[in-house]
């Protein structure tokens, strides 16, 4: 636990198999933003066999709806949103090639099982530390669903974006392990 590991996108199964829950990762490269409304549209495209607005092979999706960018900044505050709302959609996207999700809060068993099956991971960013997180974002542009406002899909270029491995490719769950460790009777 508690190693610091650099990850470069697009992610490969070999890189992800080395990760263990509790490891701190620093992600560099491209990350795509999507929340509830964008997930609904992405999954519909997958189910209809249509092309997605970005290459999902080895991709990272960040569950975030950023605040508007103030003048001179690439993005506004940009911390994670609660992930369980994306649980119905995530396994379908992992089957299509998605390799990592960034959010906050625990995931359901079906999502954890899908991560094991697809050699994918779930990373926890720190909710409510949204200004700190935004510092890792070097540029942002809307690539799809502009009508959704903050919920549009953005392509973020990130450098050393900090997160913790919450679910690894072996099915371990930090939300269970971490809590049991500090539980008192």
């Amino acid at each position, binding site marked *: 636990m508690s190693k610091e590991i650099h990850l470069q996108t697009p992610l490969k199964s070999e890189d992800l198999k080395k990760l263990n829950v509790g490891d701190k990762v620093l992600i560099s490269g491209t990350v795509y933003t999507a929340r509830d409304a964008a997930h609904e549209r992405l999954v519909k495209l997958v189910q209809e066999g249509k092309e997605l607005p970005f290459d999902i092979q080895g991709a990272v999706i960040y569950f975030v709806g950023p605040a508007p960018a103030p003048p001179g900044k690439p993005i506004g505050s940009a911390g994670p949103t609660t992930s369980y709302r994306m649980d119905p959609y995530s396994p379908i996207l992992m089957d299509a090639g998605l390799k990592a999700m960034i959010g906050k809060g625990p995931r359901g068993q079906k999502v954890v099982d899908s991560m094991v099956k697809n050699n994918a991971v779930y990373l926890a960013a720190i909710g409510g530390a949204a200004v700190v997180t935004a510092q890792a974002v070097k540029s942002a542009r809307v690539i799809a669903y502009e009508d959704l406002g903050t919920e549009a899909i953005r392509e973020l270029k990130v450098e050393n974006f900090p997160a913790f491995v919450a679910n690894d490719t072996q099915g371990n769950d930090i939300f269970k392990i971490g809590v049991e*460790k500090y539980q008192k009777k």
Partner: protein
Amino acid sequence: MREINVSEIIPVVKKLCIDSNLHIGQDVVDKLKEFMEKEESPTAKGILELIFKNHKMAAEEKMPLCQDTGVTIVFLEIGQEVHFVGGELTEAINEGVRQGYKEGYLRKSLVDDPVIERVNTGDNTPAIIYTDIVPGDKVKITVAPKGGGSENMSEVRMMKAADGIEGVKDFVVERVVESGGNPCPPVIAGVGLGGSFEQSALLAKKALLRPLTEENPDPVYNEVEQEILQRINKSGVGPQGLGGTTTALAVQILHKPCHIASMPVAVNIQCHCHRHKSETI
């Protein structure tokens, strides 16, 4: 009687929207520090340090503490001697919200139809407004932006008198612990006891406005708050649900009389980004 032109309300609401989203209260900082000293998990300590860094950077960079700048809850305490002139009070408040969220680069997080269309209203209006009529000729305005993640973990339960205070304690502990990492712990639990179905929920929300460093003035309920808090912090949930001894910073109770057949209990969960600012005109 004192006349207040509603146009005076607009800049106050605008300022409170921006201030509350950029500057955390000193009581929250003090409580976080108190808990960080006792925190047993090194990861949790690291997260709490990051939260302090975020407080500092939000103020310096003039960016909101959290991207979820919330639904804008506005509490008004209106002196009964006040007569509003010059337009509609509700519209003035919404105009203040509109201006504050635009000029403060705050996120617009409301959809119009809650179920079917879910199209963003574009300016974070309408605000959710609660008014109390009080003695005097002043108006106290409180703006409390509320994020969706913690609000989603809140609950109203119509309990039985036979459940007693032990039933209430169990419910509050269960609600916070089962929420796990979802509502951005460390949280504050606002608890509303009594009243009616809807009044208990409003009491729970108003309970959150008490400064975290102030005790409940009622010694019996103060003891109940402390016991619930200790039980929550034994759960191991910790900051962000990653494990630790800091799951909640405070439990705050407000109570009111209720029907002989009822015992409504509401728990309103508040994330660590606990935002509210007030001004009196």
